[in-house]
């Protein structure tokens, strides 16, 4: 069905190229983070997103710069796809004052208010009420924005999940609940923790439009995101997306992964979102080896720059330790 060369195809190709670029960017970034972790330049808890890139890349395309994003501790991909500069994310990983949270947050607490990126929450389910509140403020002020709230399948077991879906539905608030269902809450499989594993079904019981989406397909995520955002801008009230995805790496750098076997991971790697989109674009004649090579070298340049700038970034003076406990007023 390829219609090579037509304007429609080229718009589609452009869209796909952007999705691919974002996914590659996130993956390369995290692969570099693993290297930097092994040399102890990055420390703390670090949760990798590898395998799940289609969600961030697709979803962020559906949002406007005025919309708000609330994220989790596995948020490098969310932050990068949202437009938080790679250099400031990397500097944060290094604990530098040049980082997006001045080195006070680290991997789990990336914030960028200028992009309405509200972190970076390391308490499972902890971001959901904040998202409801952001949407409440927008609704009360008559602003058209939506708030996208990302969380994992583990959060579905928390009381806050149910409290917040109820509240957002009750008050007709524009929250896009985005559940990244990667099948594991740390090491506990969804089926071992949830009586009903169809999460979109559960969300629909709160009376909100809910869709289950192939979270390993960036185009499908982007389409679902657009559909949900359009629904919410058209009539007030929340929507729910269950993004069925999989993480190829361990929960965190400390995880020995005793809870799942390698065959399962290998099986899911067949659905690698980057490989899938690459293959699709090749089949449709939208991607050449040259383009791919060019993308790769663009990534390397950005990444090398981010790492060297992060390494060179200053540390916050220890005398400033107690700043930002209370707001500094002029």
């Amino acid at each position: 069905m390829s219609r090579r060369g037509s304007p429609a195809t080229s718009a589609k190709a452009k869209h796909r190229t952007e999705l691919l670029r974002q996914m590659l960017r996130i993956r390369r970034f995290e692969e570099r983070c693993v290297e930097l972790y092994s040399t102890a330049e990055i420390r703390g808890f670090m949760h990798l997103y590898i395998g799940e890139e289609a969600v961030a890349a697709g979803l962020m395309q559906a949002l406007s710069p005025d919309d708000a994003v609330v994220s989790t501790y596995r948020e490098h991909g969310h932050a990068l796809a949202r437009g938080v500069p790679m250099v400031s994310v990397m500097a944060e990983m290094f604990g530098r004052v040049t980082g997006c949270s001045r080195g006070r947050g680290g991997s789990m607490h990336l914030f960028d208010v200028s992009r309405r990126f509200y972190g970076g929450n390391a308490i499972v389910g902890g971001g959901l009420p904040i998202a409801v509140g952001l949407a409440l403020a927008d609704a009360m002020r008559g602003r058209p924005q939506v708030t996208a709230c990302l969380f994992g399948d583990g959060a579905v077991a928390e009381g806050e999940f149910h409290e917040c879906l109820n509240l957002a539905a009750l008050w007709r608030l524009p929250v896009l609940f985005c559940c990244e269902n990667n099948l594991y809450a740390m090491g506990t499989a969804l089926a071992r923790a949830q009586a009903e594993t169809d999460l979109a079904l559960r969300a629909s019981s709160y009376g909100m439009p809910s869709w289950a989406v192939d979270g390993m397909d960036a185009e499908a995520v982007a389409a679902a995101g657009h559909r949900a955002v359009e629904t919410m801008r058209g009539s007030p009230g929340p929507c729910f997306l269950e993004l069925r995805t999989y993480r190829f790496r361990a929960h965190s750098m400390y995880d020995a992964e005793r809870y799942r076997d390698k065959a399962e991971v290998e099986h899911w790697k067949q659905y690698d979102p980057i490989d899938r989109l690459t293959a699709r674009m090749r089949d449709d004649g939208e991607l050449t080896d040259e383009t791919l090579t060019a993308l790769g070298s663009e990534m390397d340049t950005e990444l090398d720059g981010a790492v060297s700038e992060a390494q060179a970034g200053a540390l916050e003076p220890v005398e400033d330790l107690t700043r930002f406990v209370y707001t500094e007023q002029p």
Partner: protein
Amino acid sequence: MTAVHTTYRDAIREALREALRDDERVFLMGEDVGRYGGCFAVSLGLLEEFGPERIRDTPLSESAFVGAGIGAALAGMRPIVEIMTVNFSLLALDQILNNAATLLHMSGGQLSVPLVIRMTTGAGRQLAAQHSHSLEGWYAHIPGLRIITPATLPDARGMLRPALECPDPVLVFEHGSLYNAAGDLDEPADAVDIDNAALRRTGTDISLITYGGTLPTTLAAAEQLAAEGIEADVIDLRTLRPLDEASILDSVRRTHHAVVVDEGWRSGSLSAEIAARITEHAFYDLDAPVERVCTAEVPMPYAKHLEDAALPQTDDVVAAARRVVG
């Protein structure tokens, strides 16, 4: 300026009304704040005056609506969240501690949370162990929060305005036994200082240090002591965090004796913190060890005689002061 006869409850309501009237970003939300008029009737009539958008009844989901207050504050609103009692606030502790208190710091100064959370605290009404505790000292442990405890009519009336002007989360602890306290209050009211403790009575012999619901108890004790020739300073802390250490030390350096009266449990309490600070900074000014009058280390019982026995009473304060002054 005219003086009106009012109550602590009505003074808080008037402060809420003023805030809602003067700033369209302000709204009140919580359990039963609307149609019911507030569990303690503080918000009675506000729904009719300001409508359901700004006087929001919430489901019984403390974590969600407290967290929603945080989110709304981040997006430019000035929410006042009411939690019925301090015991229920524990269901929202994750949001209060892990988000409200930390977002500014974790974000490197990007996210201020201008949120006011009001709740009832304390015992004395035979409500037993799940409605009677004084946990404000726990909250005062947490950097990033501001903890205020209005104990008088002017404070009930005047503390809300500076709390709303504060760019950081402010928790207001209203002692349940104070709501019916009555007296005359000037209108229009002055905003109250929420940075400094207030000296409610001056004396030369001993410093009685307290806050909130035990202020009347302590003032009554001071009167009894005066009849015996012992003149007490009574310090109303008003703000438990940041603590006005200077006012405490200033008083103790003048009187050389101190008793801390705190309705919290003694172990790991705010009274422990105050006693420690006096020891750290004014040890050589003391003529006797600091004493504390606290709640007995039991979950609060229902039966009146047992509840009375558990709580700091005027006679307990008098006895402690006598021992200290020797």
